[in-house]
């Protein structure tokens, strides 16, 4: 089976607190903080987007992988906020990290599951012998409509993985996917903000697919929650991943290292992949990790990883995700946020 050879995560420095957003819309910040288990979220600067964050996360992944980027045979960026409607993000990423011209490239979209979809496809291509290394990225700078519940969580970040035939830092033991047609969240063409179906995004959407995928994944490999050192679930807010983990029988301690959303927000395609990078940062050789993504529309990809001895040699070669999240940040007010996210109508 394929393995993760290198990994890296990147998030912008700007943060906005739940109180700052709630103040503008007359909402009750404590109830949002308690209900969604969110404190603050990352905000991209005007010069940061899915492409720039993908490049920075991939530079870190390459530092840990230590491979010649020209050996990368596939470059896949999963995002629902690709900067262009028509023109790939992956070509810019591939040029920036030196992976051109002999590589297959395509952009992926599946709401918050596009990053794990890119990982899944790279693993298949490696296992099938079509490529030596694949580069899979999950990145987003998603927007929530002003005043909508999503505005408290829609954040920015990226995670990048170099996937290859050797075991690397984590062996991919197996994968599993679970999906149905479920219209819980969408954005129509030419629309700036997404729409969602309120509470319908919970039980029939997130919980059905994450539970279905996690249970199917564990059954496929013959493992139970107690067999895993850690579990990472998609994090649309702080509450859902903890709740679904407990429903499956995982403890808070198993979930916490990759549980970034309370202070990062929902980085959409980057969400569970970034949680995985934070978990790799603390995992020990031999640890088993369950990862389950979720993308509205709807589907989940499941992965079982086993950490190898190599993790100890490479984890310090690039910034650790949790340390970067906690240390390098600056708080902005709603006016600055509105300017950065282009929510202000400008003169012609």
């Amino acid at each position, binding site marked *: 089976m394929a393995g993760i050879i290198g990994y890296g995560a990147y998030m912008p420095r700007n943060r906005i607190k739940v109180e700052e957003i709630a103040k503008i819309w007359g909402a009750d910040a404590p109830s949002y903080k308690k209900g969604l288990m969110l404190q603050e979220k990352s905000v991209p600067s005007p010069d940061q987007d899915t*492409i720039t964050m993908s490049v920075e996360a991939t*530079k870190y992944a390459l530092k840990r992988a230590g491979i010649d980027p020209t050996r990368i045979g596939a470059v896949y960026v999963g995002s629902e906020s690709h900067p262009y409607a028509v023109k790939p993000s992956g070509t810019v990423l591939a040029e920036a*990290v030196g992976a051109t011209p002999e590589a297959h490239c395509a952009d992926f979209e599946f709401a918050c599951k596009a990053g794990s979809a890119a990982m899944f496809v790279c693993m298949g291509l490696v296992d099938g012998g079509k490529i030596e290394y694949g580069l899979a990225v999950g990145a987003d700078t998603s927007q929530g409509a002003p005043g909508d519940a999503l505005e408290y969580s829609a954040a920015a970040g990226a995670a990048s993985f170099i996937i290859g035939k050797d075991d690397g830092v984590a062996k991919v033991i197996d994968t599993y996917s679970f999906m149905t047609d479920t219209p819980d969240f969408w954005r129509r063409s030419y629309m700036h903000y997404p729409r969602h179906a309120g509470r319908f995004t919970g039980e029939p959407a997130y919980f059905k697919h994450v539970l279905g995928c996690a249970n199917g994944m564990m059954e496929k490999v013959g493992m139970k929650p107690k067999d895993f050192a850690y579990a990472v679930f998609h994090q649309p807010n702080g509450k859902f991943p903890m709740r679904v983990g407990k429903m499956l029988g995982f403890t808070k301690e198993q979930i916490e290292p990759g549980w970034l959303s309370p202070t990062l927000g929902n980085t959409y395609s980057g969400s569970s992949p970034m949680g995985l990078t934070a978990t790799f940062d603390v995992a020990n050789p031999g640890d088993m990790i369950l990862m389950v993504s979720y993308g509205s529309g709807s589907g989940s990809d499941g992965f079982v990883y086993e950490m190898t001895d190599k993790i100890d040699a490479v984890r310090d070669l690039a910034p650790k995700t949790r340390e970067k999240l906690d240390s*390098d940040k600056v708080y902005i007010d709603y006016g600055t946020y509105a300017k950065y996210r282009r929510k202000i109508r400008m003169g012609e």
Partner: protein
Amino acid sequence: MSTSARYWREIPQRYRLEAAKCTSCGKQFFPPRLVCNGCGGREFEATKLSDKGKLATYTVIRIAPSDLTQQAPYAIGIAEFDGGLRVTAQVADVDFDELKVGMPVRIEFRRIREEGEAGILCYGYKFVPVR
């Protein structure tokens, strides 16, 4: 001349910091040039600019060109890299009172400008402080 074509020609430098070293006298150039202004040599080997340097000088732009007005005020700096190469770029993610000659900076990939609402997006390098 189309901006797309000019932007495309500069991709090796703007995206990957590709530099050139004169094989006769060892002088480095970023961006590369056809003739070495040190010895007149015309043979170069490809090198890459280090992604870490030190700020040699800076200024703050408050009256910006038309396509950068929404970013103003912003800092521009000249940083010195390995081998004495000096490069000019915007200094991002910086509080202006943090700016100091000699401060360590590293290169980050950022969106530099965009050609209006419908044109291409131009990417490249900016400096950010090493914290």
